[in-house]
């Protein structure tokens, strides 16, 4: 038994390519508002370990369906002959060069492909479309109609009444909003088209579900690695004796911030790559919350845990959260620094009273001084990094590959980050895992600590997508 082939057909510019892009997770499929984006059939085989389980074919749209049907009707003798007439139509016009789009789209159907007919449910039905549906019916192949709503308006019921007369299965499918579950539901529809195709489609569904889990697991580890690297980040700068430290300090702080941002970008790229979003552009607008600078105060206020939550989580002992305490800590570190021949201060300018990472100055034996920043000591940082990553994950993992717009990472303005909504017991567990990552110096144990943190994050990712957490 050959694996099934599904030809995605429809009128010009009704979202066929969008549907194929969403189902094939292929963001390289050309999709544009203008018609005739697809000029020749494009093949999208779903292969599991090089074994094809089904193939989608993106076809050019119907351009002259009325005339094609008229040609066929002129030659109709009996219902039994209809599919032969369609084949004859293709054969004869190969020589004349007429009806190039109709010939191209009918070819795979005549070769045995199932039909996935796409219409735009946001626009009214027109009797003219019956020409396309009638030709498809003449082919005698199993067929299913998909109502793709490109715009805001709703003409789905109107379409459904017409489509029900020509198709055994009619399913709404919004290619731009199609997340994994919606795509899976559509695949279940494919199973119904023909009994013999079921094992192939079932195997594909099973493989896609397993792949989904693998991606989630790997994403969780990528996030845990990012948080681990960011928490451990330290940067050094050699400074000559007897020069003003301030410019060096500012430079080092900027490098530190940039290094944190770069690490975050790396994680974003990894997650997007896992989910096959290889051409995704993230919005860099300053107005957008998550793509704001990591050090933007608005992010600190809206993501991560509240001060109360941090205190309750237990890591602070209810001390560090106090607004004036950082000043005292700054004084203490200064004294410590004085003992080793330098001065130690906190990098707190951009966060008001929230210090981020320690900056220290040490005398060097061969002269000069060493300015060092890091590791991250602000307990809030990891939670914010986590929240940002969760938000990004939730959007990327559910994003349809039919979309060509930028990824805008903007949570609901009033909404807190996801971690602040976790139950206290879970926050404590995550904090314990974060503390282990923060404190573990041995690389092997660090690996264990990150794996443990990744396990916790995986649960968060699952809920971030299901909307339960």
């Amino acid at each position: 038994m050959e694996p099934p082939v599904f030809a995605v057909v429809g009128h010009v510019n009704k979202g066929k390519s969008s549907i194929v892009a969403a189902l094939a997770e292929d963001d390289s499929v050309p999709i544009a508002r203008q018609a005739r984006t697809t000029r020749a059939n494009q093949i999208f085989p779903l292969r599991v370990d090089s074994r094809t389980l089904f193939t989608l074919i993106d076809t050019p749209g119907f351009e002259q369906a009325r005339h094609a049907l008229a040609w066929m009707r002129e030659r109709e003798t009996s219902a039994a002959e209809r599919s032969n007439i369609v084949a004859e139509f293709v054969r004869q016009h190969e020589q004349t060069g007429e009806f190039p789009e109709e010939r191209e789209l009918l070819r795979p159907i005549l070769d045995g492909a199932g039909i996935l007919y796409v219409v735009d449910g946001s626009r009214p039905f027109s009797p003219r479309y019956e020409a396309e549906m009638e030709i498809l019916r003449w082919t005698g192949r199993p067929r299913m109609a998909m109502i793709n709503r490109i715009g805001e308006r709703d003409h789905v019921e109107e379409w459904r009444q017409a489509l029900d007369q020509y198709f055994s299965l009619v399913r709404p499918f919004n290619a731009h909003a199609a997340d994994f579950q919606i795509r899976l539901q559509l695949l279940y529809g494919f199973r119904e088209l023909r009994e013999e195709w079921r094992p192939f489609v079932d195997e594909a569904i099973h493989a896609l579900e397993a792949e989904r889990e693998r991606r989630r697991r790997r994403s969780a580890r990528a996030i845990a690695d990012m948080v681990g690297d960011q928490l451990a980040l330290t940067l050094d700068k050699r400074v000559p004796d007897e020069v003003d430290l301030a410019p060096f300090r500012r430079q080092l702080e900027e490098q530190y911030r940039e290094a944190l941002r770069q690490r975050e970008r790396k994680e974003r790229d990894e997650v997007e790559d896992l989910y096959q979003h290889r051409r995704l552009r993230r919005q860099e607008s300053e107005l957008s919350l998550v793509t704001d600078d990591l050090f933007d105060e608005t992010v600190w206020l809206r993501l991560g845990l509240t001060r109360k939550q941090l205190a309750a989580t237990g890591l602070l002992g209810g001390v560090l959260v106090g607004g004036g305490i950082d000043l005292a800590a700054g004084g203490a570190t200064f004294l410590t620094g004085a003992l080793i021949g330098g001065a130690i201060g906190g990098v707190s300018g951009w966060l008001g009273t929230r210090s981020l990472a320690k900056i220290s100055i040490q005398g060097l034996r061969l002269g000069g001084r060493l300015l060092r920043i890091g590791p991250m000591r602000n307990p809030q940082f990891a939670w914010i990094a986590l929240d940002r990553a969760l938000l990004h994950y939730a959007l990327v993992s559910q994003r349809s590959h039919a979309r060509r717009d930028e990824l805008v990472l903007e949570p609901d303005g009033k909404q807190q980050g996801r971690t602040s909504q976790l139950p206290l017991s879970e926050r404590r567990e995550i904090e314990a895992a974060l503390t282990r990552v923060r404190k573990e110096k041995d690389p092997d144990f660090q690996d264990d600590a990150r794996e443990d943190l990744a396990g916790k994050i995986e649960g968060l990712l699952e809920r971030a997508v299901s909307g339960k957490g």
Partner: protein
Amino acid sequence: MPSPQLTLADLIDLEAQMGRDAGLDRETLRRRDRAIGREISVAPTDRRELILAWLRRVRGLGDSTGERAARALAAGTWLLCLIGLVAGAGAGAALFHYDGVRPVNVVPILGLFVALPFALLLLLVLAAAPPAWLTWLPGARALQDLLRFLSPGRLAPALSRIMPSRFRRSLDEGLGNLRSFDRLYGRVRFWLLAGISQAFLVSLQIGALAAAMALVIFTDLAFAWSTTLQVPAGTFHAITHVISTPWAAFAPEAVPSLDLVEATRYFRQGGTFVGVGDGAPNVVLLGRWWPFLVYGILTYGLLPRVLTLGLSQWRYRAALRRIGLNHAPLQELYERLTQPVIESRAQSETAGAPAAAAAETLSAGEVFAGQSPCAIIAWDLPESSEAQIREEAGRGLKCAVEGIVFAGELDVATDERALDRFRERPDTPVVLLVKSWESPTRDLTLFLERLRKRLGDGVPILVAPVEFQTGDGWGPAERHDLAEWAGRMKAEGDPWLRTVDLAGRRD
């Protein structure tokens, strides 16, 4: 079926391969490893067997880094054993040396071949203890680190430097990789080096024993005991009695008697050794110490080292067996081997159609001045009545509608009827009303070509995209729809074919 035994070579090769793979992109690794994973007929639950089978595939034929490193280490170990044998024989020959004047002193022999090995044995126990057990003992961890540092087994890698350079490099790389995963492979490394140390010490003891036996057999040795300490003969006898306990039952002749101890004590006096007791010692008695000494070396020197050598080998294999092969890179490898590779993207990437050239739209006011006449073809607008078209189009186009014909409907005969209306060249522009959201099709453009033939050059054909509003009325077409229509109409190359915006906008 038990999982296959991991060898040192495997371990080194595994880490070396992980290092090499770190430089490859994920997609390449996934394809390579999944292909191997599918070829390997191993249950995916047996992680160790799967990973080892994978290693055999990627390692290929010929010498691997691990095999070269293991060979270099084996050569170093053999060399160390040879040195042990020579050193032991040297020490034995020196201590059992009898020059005919000064008898062989039993005390240093006991010290070197009985007391010292026993003490070292205790230190081995300390070194082998899991670090967690020693937390309660102050300084024990530091001592353990020191003992590990001083282990003679550490000399084997150094001695392997006599091997050709590629072997040396393999060993350096291999042991370096293992060192960088100390928690995972620390026990393996410890028991590997402990085993080499024990092999060295066994060789040392064999050398000493062989030298002693050779001297006993081929020369006539005279033994005595002498020490600066004030040890009465009774005490020394008690000590030798305790030492002899293990073999006393089956080799009583190797247990020194009190008579022998008393008779063979010597002091150094005026540069010469003199015995105690009555006159010169019995020469027969002077030779009776050797069975005791040989049993002592066997029991306290050689036997424990043979046992610890066996123990080291056993623990080394157990440590190799216990390696979970589950740290992050191997976890990823396991996933790559067991998880299917799913591909769903296009077989070949194709470029989309080139964007239509931008073209301007006209506003109705520019075409129809003061309600001038116009003829209308309603393309695929069966849902609109003639009256509605007359009203909406008349308002939007600002023209006096002279006639309306329908075309582009399901029945192609409507096209012919519409064209028949233009048998004669009209004096008015012809307006083609189209649904703005429907992209221009070949069907329409072919109709326009036929219409142009009917009208002849010079008669304006104005394509006016119509947008339906939620109610029955018409509204302005969306900008992007208008732009598409304008672009496609311009592409037809008909200078009298233009797109007009019913809403009066002009681009």
